[in-house]
């Protein structure tokens, strides 16, 4: 996969959507994780969006999708005019992504707690159709894990040894009640491999996503500074 635009261009792409004069990458919790996924991990290409052997990236945390759209644009899935139309009536780009409108988006999201269940279904579907190459990577937030639907998916994915499934939890300590004992332990006890990583460290994120987890799903908990929005 060829990156058409560098990381340093992402703030300018986000400015096309928000009109803010400048965007500090550190103001967006998901930006570094998304960047590393699309640059170093996912095997996806804008000219083959329906390739059955492509990796699947499911953005479950659909709130605050500017970083997602910017990374999709940097990789040729979206163009600048589409970014400028962000949120307008004719735009494919809403404040929550609609997969039937956004080129390159695998799922529609916005209501929290749907992506993990969908990802489990996608992983099983690929296994049943003997497509063993694609990875299924789903991004959630730490507060999103409040939704009980996630617990159902985490339990079942662990028992089913869905080894092609990866969940990345962007943890910016936004959860109201917190997670005593940490988020990773919720996955670990259900049979997932888990890695805690600095969510701003590109090299560490890359190593985490490529870590071996041959017989079980992988949870990567990407820690971000407390209080960072979306």
């Amino acid at each position: 996969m060829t990156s058409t635009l560098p990381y340093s261009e992402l703030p300018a792409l986000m400015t096309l959507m928000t009109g803010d004069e400048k965007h500090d990458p550190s103001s967006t919790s998901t930006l570094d994780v998304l960047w590393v996924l699309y640059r170093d991990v996912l095997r996806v290409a804008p000219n083959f969006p329906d390739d059955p052997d492509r990796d699947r990236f499911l953005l479950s945390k659909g709130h605050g999708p500017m970083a997602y759209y910017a990374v999709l644009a940097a990789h040729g899935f979206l163009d600048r005019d589409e970014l400028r139309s962000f949120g307008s009536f004719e735009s494919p780009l809403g404040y929550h992504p609609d997969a039937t409108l956004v080129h390159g988006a695998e799922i529609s999201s916005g209501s929290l707690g749907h992506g993990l269940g969908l990802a489990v279904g996608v992983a099983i579907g690929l296994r049943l159709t003997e497509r063993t190459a694609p990875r299924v990577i789903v991004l959630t937030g730490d507060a999103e894990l409040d939704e009980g639907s996630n617990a159902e998916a985490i339990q079942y994915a662990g028992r089913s040894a869905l080894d092609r499934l990866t969940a990345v939890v962007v943890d910016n300590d936004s959860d109201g009640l917190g997670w005593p004992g940490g988020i990773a332990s919720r996955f670990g006890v259900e049979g997932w491999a888990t890695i805690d990583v600095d969510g701003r460290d590109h090299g560490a994120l890359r190593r985490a996503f490529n870590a071996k987890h041959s017989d079980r799903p992988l949870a990567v908990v990407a820690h971000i500074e407390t209080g960072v929005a979306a």
Partner: protein
Amino acid sequence: MSAAVNAEADPTTAAAEEQRERFYRLVPELLRGDRRRVLVLAEIGAGYLDPVMSAPVSERILNVGIREQLMLGVAGGLALTGLRPIVHTFPPFLLERPFEQVKLDLAHQGVGALLVSAGGSYGWPTGGQTHFGHRDVALLDTLDGWTVHVPGHPDEAEALLRRAVAGEDRVYVRLDVTSNAQPYDIGDGHMTMLRHGNAGTVIGVGPMIERVLAATAKRDVTVLYATTVRPFDADSLRSTLTEPDVVLVEPYLAGTSVAQVSDALRAVRHRVLGLGVRQAELRRYGTIADHDAAHGLDVAGLRRSIDDFLSC
């Protein structure tokens, strides 16, 4: 097709086999018929199906445990990979508990599934309110693009299931515990006229039709039989209409299809009565017949309501 039914027939006459049993018996064949078909369960039904399933079909039966949100999420994910999910449990756990998954994990993702419920409105009367399913069709009416089948006999259920699983769209098949003594419908999506009259139309849905025939035996009304209620067959209602008085008899929430009738007859001054399961919570157990009587859905209750309406 004419109605060869004794006007005073016992309205709770049941077919030898329940619709749900026919579905379970059909599952191995449906799964063998296309490798893309996958049955997703949340415990309910697993006990029935385990003995009849064998490899390689058994790998395409997923029991996710008592996790109904996941059941629908998995169905949506399977459909995103090009598979045809079949999802099955009791109506409240299929459509009410995971309603947002029905809404967002299927239609909003742009994919379809076949949802098959069993138990109807009060097929397990001793189970009480937690297991009653009469809200199902009304709930689906808030969503776009659902086909809804309400078979009245195991043979009708089988025909509708075979047709529904072969498509890619969103279909709900409502399997009731109560069945008619015989099938009446050819399953083409249109209502079937079982009797022609001149003083109004009574539409009986699925397992309600034999009691409708019994309750209207002495009235000069047209009787239409519907197993496919969404999309609603407005053409048949209009083309057979005489006096524009219409009674709907549905085995789920009373009035569920009144809006469809009103829309079908929007160019005609008309009256419509919607009979079905009443909204008030009874807090009663007992038998199916007890609940039929309590909701006015036995022959005597239907005759009373229909006579009152058509006489005024």
